[in-house]
């Protein structure tokens, strides 16, 4: 199935009453690649995310997900939780949405809910303690432990997620999304609020997810250093429409992108884009 994009968004439109948040947007994300969606505040990036992950029903257009085995799913027809469960699309949130009163390990266990539910015979077998469920739980803990190791939080496994540092919470949320074993991982501003060192660690984590696990990533990000370093493909939005797309280099030199970001003062814009290289 080479050449088939994992996600293709076709003429997506989203209206809220009279306001058109996204208008006629089309783009595609390649499998096992990192695709970034960038644009100034209010460009409609998060709306696109919410349409892809089913939190909004699009007013028009089609969103198609193609799995490795060629199975195609029309995301615009599915509910939010079915998109995560059946289409295997996981997401994180702009403002972190962990389960703060549960431990880091528990957060990762909740992410494996559907696998564990099946193993526990929809609770009935688990209640009487059949060994198959115990094995499945052990495997789930092993997967969670593996992810805690990857995000360097193994020693905080039994601490409440709400007690973790901000940067750790961001990484834990990504690990939680990855524990659902998704085909497509959607990250909404994962670098927001991180310092330079944490951003660098995040870039490394995302690259390892792409290279070692082979999960495709769709990313909204404002931190240009992260976007320019790790993206394979960038889509630029402004006022709900796509204004440019291409490789980081192409996008960086696009006058329309520079204008969208900083009015028309190209010198200043160039300086900002330069800082990300």
């Amino acid at each position, binding site marked *: 199935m080479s050449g088939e994009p994992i996600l293709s968004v076709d003429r997506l439109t989203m209206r809220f009453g009279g306001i058109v948040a996204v208008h006629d947007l089309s783009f595609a994300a390649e499998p096992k690649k990192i695709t970034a969606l960038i644009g100034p505040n209010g460009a409609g990036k998060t709306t696109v995310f919410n349409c892809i*992950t089913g*939190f909004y029903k699009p007013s028009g257009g089609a969103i198609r997900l193609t799995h490795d085995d060629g199975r195609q799913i029309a995301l615009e027809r599915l509910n*939010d*939780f*079915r*998109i*995560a*469960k059946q289409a295997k699309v*996981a*997401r994180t*949130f702009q403002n972190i*949405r*962990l*389960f*703060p*009163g*549960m*431990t880091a*390990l*528990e957060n990762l*266990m*909740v*992410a*494996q*809910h*559907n696998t*564990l*539910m099946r193993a*526990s015979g929809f*609770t009935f077998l*688990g*209640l009487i303690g059949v060994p198959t*469920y115990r094995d499945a*739980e052990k495997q789930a*803990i092993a997967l969670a*432990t593996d992810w805690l190791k990857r995000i360097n939080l*193994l020693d905080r*496994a*039994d*601490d*409440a997620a*709400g*007690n973790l540092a901000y940067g750790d919470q961001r990484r834990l949320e990504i690990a*939680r*999304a990855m524990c*659902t074993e998704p085909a497509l991982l959607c990250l909404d501003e994962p670098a927001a609020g991180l310092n330079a060192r944490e951003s660098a660690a995040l870039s490394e984590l995302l690259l390892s997810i792409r290279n070692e696990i082979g999960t495709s990533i769709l990313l909204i990000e404002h931190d240009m250093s992260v976007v320019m370093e790790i993206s394979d493909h960038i889509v630029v939005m402004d006022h709900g429409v796509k204004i440019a797309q291409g490789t980081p280099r192409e996008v960086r030199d696009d006058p329309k992108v520079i204008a969208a970001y900083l009015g028309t003062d190209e010198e200043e814009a160039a300086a900002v884009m330069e800082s990300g290289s």
Partner: protein
Amino acid sequence: MTATPHETAKASRTAGIPFLLKTAFINAVIALVLFSLMIGIRTEAGSDGQLTYWTRFGDLASIVAAVFGGSIVIELLRQWIGPTGAEKLVPPAVQSGMSFIGRYLAPALLVFTLLVPVIFYNQRYILDLAILVLTYVMLGWGLNVVVGLAGLLDLGYVAFYAVGAYSYALLATNFGWSFWVCLPLAGILAAFWGVLLGFPVLRLRGDYLAIVTLAFGEIIRLVIINWQDLTGGPNGVSGIPRPTFFGIPLDNSDDGLAAKLRIEYSPTHRIVFLFYLILALALLTNWVTIRLRRLPIGRAWEALREDEVACRALGINTTTTKLTAFATGAMFGGFAGAFFATRQGFISPESFTFQESALVLAIVVLGGMGSQLGVALAALAMIGGFELFRSLETYRMLVFGMAMVLIMIWRPRGLIGHRAPTVYLTKAQAISSDLVKEGHG
């Protein structure tokens, strides 16, 4: 002038007589406004029906003076003790002792409960009270699944209690089915009603959910009152069969249990049997809840309480998860209802008013939402404590209410507010109540 932080803190703590006087004055004015009509003027109907009144400014003045003086004393005490938390007032030795007690409290309580009928065999009053407390422990544990774990505020829990009670009462009186056949049926029927209630309320959150569940509780009660052919209406159902020891009746007949065991019959046998029956049912509820918490469904309930949107993003079907919480809680309510019916021998809609729902909810909140031990302690305090104040007669409700308020000030998140993790790698650490969400529907 460079004051160390310690000195400035001290200075601000002992800050000034003007501040003291100002606070006391404001409190005195509030007291004056409040009490001027309540105490200052006394009105009464005169002999010819006219209104007579007289003033009691002396009493008013003494009350205002007491408030003035009292607020100075309280403010001084506050400055003297300082802003330290209440924990710091407790010496470390007592604290370690308390944690020791905490570890062995649950097993000790269980052993004591098992021995209650032995210790108090001749005290019918205490046995009856213990059965009542255990019934509320069971109801509290059942509601804890819905409110404490899933974070769904349910003000109509008594509806399921009623469904369970009427299921057993009607099946037993009309078809003569035994308690042990009806008990699971009562649970299943109550769970079925839990699902029925669940469907319309799934989209509601917080206050709206609370109001709809409240209405549901009333609907069930009104249906019971008005469906006279089936339920007997306000007259209730009487002559509900007493429970049997797996078919052997507990009475004075020749084939009763006492006769079979060749011991002398005593009415206490039945009370003791009822005691162990409700204890077994309550422990079953507890065991199932503890197990469910460690299964994916239980974790999903708690995750739902923490953040519903995140749950959906992880592929959890929040609809079925909420429904299972409602159904599980309702099922235990139904079991408790069937027990209630067989214990009383007579049920009527009066037993299933909103007050019961409020009482069970108060037990869950007072105990600490989600904590099994906390709910048990709270049921003991609420039901047992209420009996304890019986000698105070008129002031019983007042003292009881004040005790509740004080406990909630001392422990805003309930007696046991922290949360125990359901799974751990190295060491299970209790999670502070500040982090645990209360849920919002």
